[in-house]
């Protein structure tokens, strides 16, 4: 029967079984590939993956002048670009989304523009960013910021329209609120959980734009490294980077969900 419940122990057993099945089948495919070609690096065994893990944390260069490990250089570059881009993008999309939901004279001119531009895939706009912002840090940050700006503005605007009723606003006026207080004390507080959820949802697409751009023009960064290592078929590093990306995604998801629970204990999904 659809949606019939199963015992909890069985659920967890199947969940762990799924992960074990993935790991075992990966190792089997890797072994089969190694039997065909002993020097293969396309599907490295777990031993090789461990080597890759050690490699990315190994300091580069000579012992008397060690450069930071590859991983730290890449993660710092990527996280800096992502952090800066997300901060700018989230700030302006919340500002514009809230104002569009609050004032018809802002909604009227910006609504159609935001809706149109939110439909253009940000990766397709990459050449425009390269042309306008060059290929330095500001290009990556502006790309992430603009990449999330239009769709997030649209979501925030819709959250204001749906979650903040006219009654709530009129009542706030009757309780002596000024316009600024309505925006800060009513609209902002009502949609805060939606803002946090939107940030959580936008991290994925932002990473897609950023990694794609890094693969094309980066000099450092996770995307740049994945591309460079895959060109020389050093897949043990590539897979480790992919696993780290998944862990970063999970950590961000967990962190933002926790933040939402702490800041908005009243919010029920």
């Amino acid at each position, binding site marked *: 029967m659809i949606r019939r419940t199963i015992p909890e122990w069985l659920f967890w057993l199947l969940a762990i079984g799924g992960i074990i099945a993935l790991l075992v089948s990966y190792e089997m495919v890797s072994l089969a590939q190694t039997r065909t070609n002993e020097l293969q690096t396309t599907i490295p065994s777990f031993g090789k993956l461990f080597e890759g893990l050690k490699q990315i944390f190994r300091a580069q260069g000579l012992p008397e002048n060690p450069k930071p490990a590859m991983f730290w250089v890449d993660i710092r570059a990527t996280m800096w670009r992502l952090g800066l881009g997300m901060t700018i993008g989230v700030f302006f999309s919340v500002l514009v989304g809230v104002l569009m939901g609050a004032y018809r004279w802002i909604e009227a001119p910006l609504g159609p523009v935001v809706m149109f531009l939110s439909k253009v895939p940000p990766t397709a706009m990459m050449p425009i960013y390269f042309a306008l912002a060059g290929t330095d840090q500001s290009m990556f940050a502006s790309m992430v910021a603009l990449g999330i700006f239009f769709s997030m503005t649209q979501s925030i605007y819709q959250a204001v329209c749906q979650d903040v*009723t*006219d*009654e*709530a606003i*009129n*009542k*706030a*006026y*009757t*309780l*002596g*609120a*000024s316009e*600024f*207080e309505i925006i*800060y*004390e*009513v609209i902002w*507080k*009502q949609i*805060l959980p939606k803002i946090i959820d939107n940030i959580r949802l936008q991290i994925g697409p932002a990473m897609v734009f950023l990694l794609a751009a890094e693969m094309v023009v980066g000099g450092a960064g996770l995307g740049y490294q994945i591309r460079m290592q895959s060109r020389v078929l050093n897949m043990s590093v590539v897979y480790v980077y992919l696993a780290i990306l998944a862990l970063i995604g999970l950590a961000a998801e967990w962190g933002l969900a926790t933040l939402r629970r702490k800041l*908005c*204990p*009243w*919010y*029920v999904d």
Partner: protein
Amino acid sequence: MSQYALEVKSLSHSFGNYRVLDNIQLQVYPGQIVAVVGPSGCGKSTLLKAILGTNPPTSGEILTDGIPVRSPNRNVGIVYQNYSLYDFLNAEQNVSFGLKLDETSFLMRLFAIRKYLSLRKSHLSKSRDFLKQVGLESACGKYPHEMSGGMKQRVAVAQAFIMRPKIVLLDEPFGALDEAMREDLQLMLLRFYQENLLAKQEGRRPEYTILMVTHELNEAIYVADRVIGLSRFHTQGDQGAAIVYDKPCPIFSPEDPRDFSKFSEQRDELRKAVFDEEYIKDRNKYVTFWSELSELANRVAEPR
């Protein structure tokens, strides 16, 4: 200070060419509980929105305590049928929200934290006292999603009245509640009316002035001390709905038995005057001119 808590002068309202309300004249005295009844679509909500200030009338003027209403402001409180509490505030924060908005500013909250915190303490304590008064002392820390409909509506009532507005508008306030909850809330309004009587006796201005829209005729007569009927079924009905019924009604105290048969005659009269499509009459046939009847206008001064 005006003698009227609310004064509506020659109010008319049209949507395009369709005239909804025609020449509404209404004076509400401090301490009155006025129920507004009428067929659906007769303009009750339009009148309420005009008094609230969200939809200004096409012509005419509305004054609360002598001050013209141009937009929603703290002189007019509102309680909606769907509660409209702020989800992100618990019961006591919801009730004290108006005090916070009214008595502190954003800059004070940011730069004069000590002063703000001491005010906040007194606001929350006032809010708890008010919640106690409406029987909700145990629910102070609950968020709206943790409360029943009846509890939410009590919080909404407390939220409006704690501001001591000149008048509070109740828009079908108990429409979404079950019968038991409805009764509880009706008794709460009767207790407010008793406090008005006491205030008048002691020479104070009564605090609870209410204009309540309801579709329940028994509720209207039982809770209010004056019932108004809005309807198009009068000789100039093509001009829009007008007040076709305006009469005092019996006063109950919370301890009295809930006996609706006591006012069955008035209920039938009200139904005929306001809801009977066939009965077209002069719009003033069932209207008491309150300004000419000072003893009735001051009725709230007479304890039972």
